[in-house]
């Protein structure tokens, strides 16, 4: 059976991880490569690096990081943040990235999805969607949940799929940071509407939240950051718990 995937997400700025990390056995918690290696040893199925660098040097910095990760890590990984054109994606692919994730660039220029899928294949293109409830509707937001768009979440996801997204990374900004669980209602709705894999994000606070999201929404993967970085949930423990609930894991 295809295993449900557990995906730690690392925020990276100027080539260094920025969210707090308290693994006791890390010599340098700011080194994304060492952190990634640690996660791969723990049994993470995949990694996402979210680049929040805002300098002109960003592509060069990111390419160096991607190469360093690809040299050392034997599981797949995705790069998100600041990918605005084919050339960005091409540089990351050639450095060893398995997938790229695009968010606001796709909202502003939806044809970018078509271009990336045509150039590199749908399997390379994750469309990340940040969503928030406004007036009882799920609306696509930009800028980390601060800027609402005109787009309704499900409609935008279906458009992204038809344009060539190979996977959807759906983050509920209402749940993100609350540790109150994933938005299982919206995730179920989306997962039942698309024929491509869905990654749940936003709200993970306990092992039970992962059990719930896989049992209720049947999404393909779940992503989290701080619960892993702070050691609140250890991946081997999480996998054991999922297995005990008859959820297929690696």
């Amino acid at each position, binding site marked *: *059976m*295809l*295993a*449900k*995937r557990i995906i730690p997400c690392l925020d990276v700025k100027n080539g260094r991880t920025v969210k707090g990390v308290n693994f006791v056995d890390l010599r340098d918690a700011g080194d994304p*490569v*060492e952190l990634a*290696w640690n996660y*791969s040893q723990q049994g993470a*199925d*995949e990694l996402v690096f979210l680049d929040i660098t805002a300098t002109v040097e960003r592509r060069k910095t990111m390419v160096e990081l991607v*190469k360093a990760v*690809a*040299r*050392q890590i*034997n*599981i*797949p990984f995705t790069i998100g943040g600041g990918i605005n054109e084919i050339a960005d994606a091409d540089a990351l*692919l*050639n*450095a*060893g990235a*398995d997938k790229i994730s695009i968010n606001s660039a796709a909202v502003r220029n939806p044809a970018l999805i078509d271009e990336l899928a045509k150039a*590199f*294949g*749908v*399997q*390379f293109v994750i469309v990340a969607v940040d969503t928030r409830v406004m007036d009882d509707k799920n609306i696509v937001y930009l800028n980390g949940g601060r800027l609402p768009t005109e787009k309704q979440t499900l409609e935008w996801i279906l458009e992204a799929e038809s344009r060539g997204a*190979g*996977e959807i990374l759906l983050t509920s900004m209402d749940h993100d940071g609350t540790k109150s669980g994933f938005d299982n209602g919206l995730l179920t709705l989306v*997962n*039942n*509407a*698309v*024929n*491509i*894999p*869905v990654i749940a994000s936003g709200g993970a606070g306990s092992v039970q939240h992962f059990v719930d999201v896989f049992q209720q929404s*049947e999404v*393909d*993967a779940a992503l989290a950051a701080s619960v892993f970085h702070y050691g609140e949930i250890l991946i081997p423990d999480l996998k054991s718990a999922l297995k005990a609930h008859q959820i297929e894991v*690696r």
Partner: protein
Amino acid sequence: MTDNNQPDTATALPGISPDGPRIGIIRYGAGNIFSLTAALERLNIPYGMVYTETDFEKFDRYIIPGVGHAGAAMNKLEQTGLVPKIKALKKPTLGICVGMQLLTSWSEEGDADMLNIFPVKTLKFAGNTTFKVPHTGWNQVYQEKENPLFKNIPAGSHFYFVHSYFIEYDHLYTLSSTSYINKFSASIWLDNFYGVQFHPEKSGVYGETLLTNFSKI
């Protein structure tokens, strides 16, 4: 993990054991090979690049890499002029992902004729909201035949897949199988030719075991 032996790709031949097996990676302009060469370097498996017919003589086994569109990949391979040489190879040759699909007779992706080393077809998954396409993630692989490629890899081990097209199951050529929507060929084998649909360079320890096994076949 901290030793920074700069594996800089391209044409470097890190001859760690000059008398040991050397893998020639067949280059035809499809896909990136950074992750593959990085894995070979982690495993101390010497490798180099095959661009021309004479390059084949430098190596005692070959990998055909590939990602993306199978029809487009076949076009690029034909443009290299290496097709007759590849079809006549007698040394161990491993196709990975689209590189494996190139070994089949035909692909539904682009309605394209392939190398026809294996008389089996590459077909598109019929996806739905339960079985998503691309088939993305870690799935279990079961050997159908005894072969050193899977030495020290237990039945049912997980490998990393990401593909929308699959090679049909065939009891003659399927070396290992995986089930997703339907049972398909996770790997194929005929004489010196092998293909794997998953990405061994991204499949954790068992993927690395498989690459090491191939270097010793």
